[in-house]
């Protein structure tokens, strides 16, 4: 009788599976466990919605609260705020690079502002501009413009002098040196600034939408919660979460094209 070797499963065997597959499988298992726990009332339905209900609820959310319209509104506000950030931060960051004294004077202030809870200014802007989308644009602009200014300045400061000297030895004009050497060399840092600016703008716009009850995605979350529609609240959270994850992933991919390291 042949003595067959028993192939026992070991945890290290799991490493043969690609990590993303394991990740998705774990997420699926977590969803199933949660589904069972809520279905059997181990976790009260008044606190947590069944995952299946929350996912199917996205369709209801679109029908009742125009989810796609809300996404369009939020991204419209983010786009306008981001354009304003670029208009303000690109020249100002370059100005700070060119004028060292101003850079020394303002960089500390900018860093302090970056760490400050800027979103607290929203009651003031609401009083000044009213409960409307202008307040949301300004509240999206303020936290996004600071990292962009810092990164633009850092980008230009990081251009190696040797590259500029090569340009000078080729008798390039200052304009040519800027567009052909400095800007491309500073681009990776500037794009990191774009990514941070977009991320902070989106986070703040959704936060203010939630608090002020004006705008898109944030409003849907607060609206469902105040109606005590638990599955709807979870659907809205999943939608807002999914949109921000997809958005951050997309800008991360775009940044990688510019910063291939």
């Amino acid at each position, binding site marked *: 009788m042949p003595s067959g070797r028993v192939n026992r499963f070991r945890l290290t065997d799991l490493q043969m599976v690609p990590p993303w597959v394991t990740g998705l499988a774990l997420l699926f298992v977590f969803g199933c466990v949660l589904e069972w726990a809520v279905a059997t009332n181990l976790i009260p339905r008044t*606190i947590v919605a069944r995952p299946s209900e929350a996912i199917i609820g996205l369709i209801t959310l679109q029908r009742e609260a125009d989810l796609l319209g809300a996404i369009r509104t939020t991204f419209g506000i983010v786009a306008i705020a981001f354009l304003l950030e670029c208009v303000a931060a690109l020249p100002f960051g370059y100005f700070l690079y*060119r004028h060292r004294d101003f850079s020394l004077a303002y960089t500390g202030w900018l860093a302090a502002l970056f*760490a400050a*809870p800027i979103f607290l200014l929203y009651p003031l802007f609401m009083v000044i501009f009213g409960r409307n989308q202008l307040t949301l644009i300004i509240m999206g602009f303020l936290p996004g413009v600071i990292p962009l200014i810092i990164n633009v300045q850092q980008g230009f400061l990081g251009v190696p002098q040797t590259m500029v000297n090569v340009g000078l030895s080729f008798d390039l004009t200052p304009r040519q040196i800027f567009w052909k050497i400095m800007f491309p060399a500073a681009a990776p840092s500037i794009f990191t600034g774009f990514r941070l600016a977009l991320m902070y703008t989106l986070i*703040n716009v959704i936060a203010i939408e939630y608090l002020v009850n004006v705008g898109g995605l944030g409003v849907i979350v607060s609206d469902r919660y105040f109606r005590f529609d638990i599955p709807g609240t979870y659907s809205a959270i999943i939608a807002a979460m999914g949109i*921000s*994850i997809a958005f951050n992933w997309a800008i991360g991919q775009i940044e990688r094209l510019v910063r291939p390291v």
Partner: protein
Amino acid sequence: MIATVRRLPSLTPRVLIIKIVTAVCILAAWEALSVSGLFYKGIVPSVFEVLRACVAEVADKGFYRDLGYTLLESFVGFAGGSVIAVAVAIVLGLNSYARRVCEPYINALGGTPKIIFLPILFLIFGLGIESKMAKAALSAFFPVVLSTISGFVQIPPVLIRVGESFGLTRWQTVRKIYLPAMSEPLLTGLRLGIAMAIIGVLSAEISYSNVGLGYRLIQSADQFKIPSVYAITFLIFAVSALINTAVMHLQRWMSKHKRGSVASSAAKVSTRLARRAA
């Protein structure tokens, strides 16, 4: 068009003048706006009115009660969130496969607006200070875990091999090699974490609370006490800047202390080696 000097010098009189002139210009512009009539009366109060409101707030006992609640919620939440974050980071740091499985999810969730989770926290922890602590923990968790994981990844493999050659246990490796080697990114993560915890608590207090500085701010706004809104906002900015500066100094002190202790241990080792050789 091209600046040739790369290193920035320290604070010079010219820089100081720029700072003072800028601050004076901002205050003058504010004062001009307040008397310009561009906005409804009282919406942009004069600088002196705001200063008076600041003094009134600081003299009010209620301000300290609210400050106490905000700090309590922030620090308790921060402590809880950081402990969980460091534990998760150590587990993920020790197992590269687990890190590759979990890191994309942690990164993805880290970039989402945490305020959208407030309804879940309110449903689970209620509307009291517990939900604010939970919000602080959630806000502090992501910067600490991401920073600590990146610190783990950057540990030179030679250090780990030295530990293995000395036959260190898993716990000894964590205590003697991993934690000291990743103390810098950990401290940076903790500094970011405390700032995020305070912001998280304030947003939760604004959303639903009856104590805390966030509640105080939104109550003044609802009652249209505009100078108080400005005053409370500035005081909150000042408190968070103070905490941030304190943590930064602590971080610098710890880095210096670490460098000092490393230098003294190296000196001790070299002395011993010299004695043995002699």
